[in-house]
């Protein structure tokens, strides 16, 4: 068998031999059993040493994790379905020609790819590689986390129709994403918005990685979970901590001020980086203390821009682009939030 790697295509994945597969599988099962054992053997009395507040911190944080985990998995499964199992180029061939309608359609693509905002970055990269313009890709990146069935369902579950939060989130997300796409479509040289490395990748056509679809699905699931779950766990811990540690008076004062509440929750959204699929549940905890405009700002700004997203996007876009993006999206979200508060 030839051992010379081909110059343009990536080397095929190392074949997993049967013994190695069995070993890997046993390791996975052993790890699972280890966790089960820890859970079963942990003595009940451990909880007694904790004070009430600490106990509540854990209860609250754990509840966010347990609530969110199935939605995260669902999102990843759907994304895998589209990325791995749909015929190549299927989506792009069916996009309309007119620029504006094209962007509108792209912002709805989130319906087909209901994954956390983090999962959308690799997807957006792939789309640029397959011919989408930078502006269009940004529209997708910003719209998909909000305009997808899972996010809409969970937002509805958390807030119902009250205070126009659901409607504002959907409309706001749609408008801001298309605004960004339009702004960047007018940029004289869109490719300069990309990092040099990524530009180089765009210059070569990349083949699909050679592996069975099952293997790619399994692999993608593992990669996505290892990318998203740490953010989920840390975000949940922060949520629990804020609930327990921040004095209620401070929260109420901040929350009831029509201007400060918006900025406070936008700052929180930036830091928290929780999956858009389930961030409605997270912010519901603040639902009674903060004004609806602040909640809307959180729900619109968070899925678009946060620390984690910026880190992921930095692989593709220049820092200057990201700063501009943050500013524009931030201002638009703030305007939306302040507007909702004014109407409330």
């Amino acid at each position, binding site marked *: 068998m030839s051992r010379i790697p081909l110059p343009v295509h990536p*080397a095929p994945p190392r074949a997993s031999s049967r013994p190695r597969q069995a070993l890997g599988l046993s390791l*996975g099962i052993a790890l*699972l059993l280890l966790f089960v054992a820890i859970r079963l053997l942990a003595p009940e009395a451990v909880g007694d040493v904790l004070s009430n507040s600490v106990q509540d911190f854990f209860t609250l944080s*754990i509840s966010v994790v347990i609530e969110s*985990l199935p939605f995260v998995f669902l999102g990843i499964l759907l994304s895998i379905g589209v990325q791995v199992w749909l015929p190549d180029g299927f989506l792009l061939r069916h996009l309309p020609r007119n620029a504006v309608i094209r962007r509108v359609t792209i912002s709805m693509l989130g319906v087909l790819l209901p994954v956390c905002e983090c999962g959308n970055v690799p997807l957006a*990269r792939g789309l640029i590689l397959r011919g989408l313009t930078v502006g269009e890709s940004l529209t997708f990146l910003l719209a998909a986390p909000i305009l997808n069935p899972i996010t809409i369902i969970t937002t509805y579950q958390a807030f119902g129709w009250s205070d126009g939060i659901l409607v504002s989130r959907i409309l706001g997300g749609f408008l801001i994403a298309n605004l960004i796409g339009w702004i960047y479509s007018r940029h004289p040289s869109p490719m300069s918005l990309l990092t040099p490395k990524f530009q180089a990748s765009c210059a070569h056509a*990349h*083949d699909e990685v050679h592996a069975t679809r099952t293997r790619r699905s399994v692999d993608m699931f593992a990669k996505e979970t290892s990318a998203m779950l740490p953010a989920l766990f840390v975000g949940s811990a922060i949520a629990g901590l804020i609930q327990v540690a921040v004095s209620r008076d401070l929260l109420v004062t901040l929350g009831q001020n029509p201007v400060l509440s918006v900025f406070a929750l936008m700052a929180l959204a930036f830091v928290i980086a929780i999956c858009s699929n389930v961030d409605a549940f997270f912010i519901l905890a603040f639902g009674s203390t903060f004004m609806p405009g602040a909640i809307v700002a959180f729900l619109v700004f968070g899925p678009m821009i946060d620390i984690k997203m910026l880190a*992921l996007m930095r692989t593709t876009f220049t820092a200057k682009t990201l700063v501009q993006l943050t500013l524009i999206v931030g201002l638009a979200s703030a305007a939306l939030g302040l507007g909702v508060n004014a109407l409330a």
Partner: protein
Amino acid sequence: MLALIGIVATVWLAVTGRLGLYIHPRYFEFTVIMAVIGAVLVVAAFAFTPLEDEHEEHDEHDPDASALASGEHTHEHDADRGRPTRFGTLRAAIAAVIVAGAAIALLVLPPATLTSATATQRSINSASSTLDQNAPALVGGDTSQFSVKDWALLIRQNPDADYYADKAVDVVGFVTESPDDPDNVFYVARFAVTCCAVDAQPVGVPVYLPGWKEQYSADEWVAASGTFAANPGSSSAEQLLLMPEDLASTEQPDQPYVF
């Protein structure tokens, strides 16, 4: 790795019937099904070496180490390129802390209900959204099945003392002191949950029992019965207080929250 921790915790809670401490019952089936699917996929991932990402230039890892490490690290391979290895160690350390913390929280600590600390923090009966939802046909309804939530809502809607003169109240909840009159009034309270424990709002029925602290402590579960009467002059903001005829400690119910 984190996925497995989360999945094991979820399934164990479901099997021991304590999932309701954390999430609303309507999510039970969905949660368990997704957890099982997730478990299958994550364990299956251990059988394969991680595929090269199409944008990565070369695979730097020893395949055996990769198979072991898949799922353990937070590294997005694209972001790793060009970074000094010092960051690599830092990221691994942070990942280890997160995994350890998650393991302790989800696998070691026993499941618990929210305590009175949260009830105080969230100011009992204050959430108008909780109280407005789905008010049962209270006036003229069958009050024998009312929970603390129903009663809390009713006495807000209809603070007329005469209305309650013949209505027996029988509720179970945990004890938490009244913010306005902690020595004479306590609440028999429970948490009303919309989606998961993080949005729990405390609701409760105020009970008038001067010196209650000598007999009961906060977080203790009690069964109380009696009737409502007008506030006899306590500094509590409530207009109606429960005059207890019968008050006894009970066990925390399997499902401590009300929905």
